[in-house]
């Protein structure tokens, strides 16, 4: 659904390579997480995907249409919410915004009205449809921006930091919508976020960028599994930990964190604890989360996968 081939963006004579030979292939119905630290090139890539920026080289195809040579058809394939922008007109009502963006995306007025009613009802904004968006809370404004991106029911949605600055309740609504879009409507969702828990919860596949290059592009489970050689275990014992063990003690329970190369080494640790009279409360294998993986990838490029 989204195919990016050797996408490169070089700025100015200084040959700053904001995006360097990035290739992606995102199938339909996938929630694709596009991660990276600030300045990694995520937003530049999204802008090239959305036709807002011309690549120095490489190609972008959305729904089979080349953004450079079949622009009109490619633009009809997606809706987008861009980071750091209002995305919608604050002096217009939610209803007026949706009708405007619907027609801009090629819908007839009657079609836009039906879609707008569906989206505003689903996002719990129907009662406020005639109010100016400028008077809405940040969460409600973001909902309107998301509704505007979805107004033409596009097969692809580009969401740049969709949950940034939102409260817990609105974040949950947005996450529910993203999941439903992919699972129920088969929409392909490409999202960038710095909230790695959100990415881990939502994304079927994750790509990580660092200094303009992709350092990982794998299904989320595979990406997490590929870091399992660094497995950690948490051992909880009653009372204070025996001498020789670094532990954090809280409420009469000490948590000892051990990192092992071979899982069988855990038996040795437990044996040492038993020998020193410690009473075992629990033993848990700590799976690396996306934050661990992300930090490893952006700080240690040798981990590229």
């Amino acid at each position, binding site marked *: 659904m989204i195919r990016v081939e050797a996408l490169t963006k070089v*700025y100015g004579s200084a040959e700053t390579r*904001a995006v360097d030979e990035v290739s992606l292939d995102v199938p339909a119905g996938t929630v694709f997480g596009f991660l990276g630290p600030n300045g990694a090139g995520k937003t*530049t890539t999204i*802008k090239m995907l*959305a*036709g*807002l*920026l*011309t690549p120095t080289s490489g190609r972008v195809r959305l729904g089979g249409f080349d953004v450079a040579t079949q*622009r*009109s*058809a490619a*633009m*009809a394939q*997606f*809706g*987008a919410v*861009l980071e*750091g*922008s*209002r*995305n*919608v*007109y*604050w*002096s*217009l009502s939610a209803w*007026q915004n949706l*009708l*405007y*963006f619907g*027609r*801009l*995306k*090629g819908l*007839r*007025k009657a079609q836009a009205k039906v879609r707008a009613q569906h989206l505003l009802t689903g996002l719990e904004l129907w009662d406020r449809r005639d109010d*100016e968006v400028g008077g809405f809370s940040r969460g409600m404004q973001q909902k309107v921006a998301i509704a*505007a991106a979805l107004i033409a029911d596009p097969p692809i949605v580009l969401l740049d930091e969709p949950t940034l600055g939102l409260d817990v309740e609105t974040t949950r609504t947005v996450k529910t919508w993203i999941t439903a879009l992919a699972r129920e409507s088969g929409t392909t969702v490409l999202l960038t976020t710095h909230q790695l828990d959100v990415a881990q919860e939502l994304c079927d596949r994750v790509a990580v960028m660092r200094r303009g290059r992709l350092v990982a592009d794998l299904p989320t489970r595979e990406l997490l599994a590929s870091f399992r050689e660094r497995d950690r275990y948490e051992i909880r014992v009653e009372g204070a930990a025996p001498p020789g063990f670094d532990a954090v003690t809280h409420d009469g329970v000490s948590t000892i964190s051990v990192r092992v190369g071979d899982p069988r080494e855990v038996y040795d640790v437990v044996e040492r604890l038993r020998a020193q009279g410690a009473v075992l409360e629990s033993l848990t294998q700590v799976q690396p989360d996306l934050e661990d993986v992300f930090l490893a990838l952006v700080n240690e490029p040798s981990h590229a996968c």
Partner: protein
Amino acid sequence: MLADVLAAEIGKGLRVQLAHPVGHVITLLISTMMYLGLQFVLGQGELRQDLLPQTLVAIGGYWFLQYAGLVLVADLIEEKRAGTFAQTRMSPAPAWLPMLGRLITASIFGLGVAAAAALVPVLVAGIAIPLRWAALLPALLLGANVLAFTFLLAALALVSPMIGALQSLFTSLVLLLNGSFLPLAFYPDWLAALARVLPTTLGIEVITRTLFEGGTLAQVWHDGSLPWLVAHTLALIVAGGLLFSRNHRRVLRESS
């Protein structure tokens, strides 16, 4: 689809402008008060009926330029900042279509405000403006001249952060020199020549000749004023078109 996008763009533009009308009403009142006040001062304590019709046409051209420019350029700057301009560029419609919609919105709003502002002096000072068919073509060319200049500024606004200052400079010069205070005939030759380089001035000159001096289109063509107006307008349209095309490519190349 193209007509639908165009209608949506115009409708949106007018709704945005009319969302908070009080500011426009206040600006409009200030504009008419300023005009009548200046005419009173320049007329040394009276409103001179021999000058008012000509200067009213001239300031009407200025108001059209000022408000059309405000709608097109100021809104474009604001939309670039707010990200809605980027949203409009992600439409399947060609890039020039929303811009055409903006231009039409600007002309509707500019014309509406100019007409409303002119109505106050007409009623207050009893200014009579004759209507002659010969003035219709020059009036349309004046409109095209204003819009072409506004489009040129909008093309600059795509890339230049200084466009607000540039717009203020040009609109101020137009107000000072296009005949809004005194008809061009009162100016020294060098200042009149400079004034004719600015938008609106040539149009107002041709309208003055056809509307108030009884000139025909053939006469204004032969005395060179109409050809100059046509050439000036065409030059602005070509310059605006080239600049828009160049700056749009630049935005696509450099936006980060």
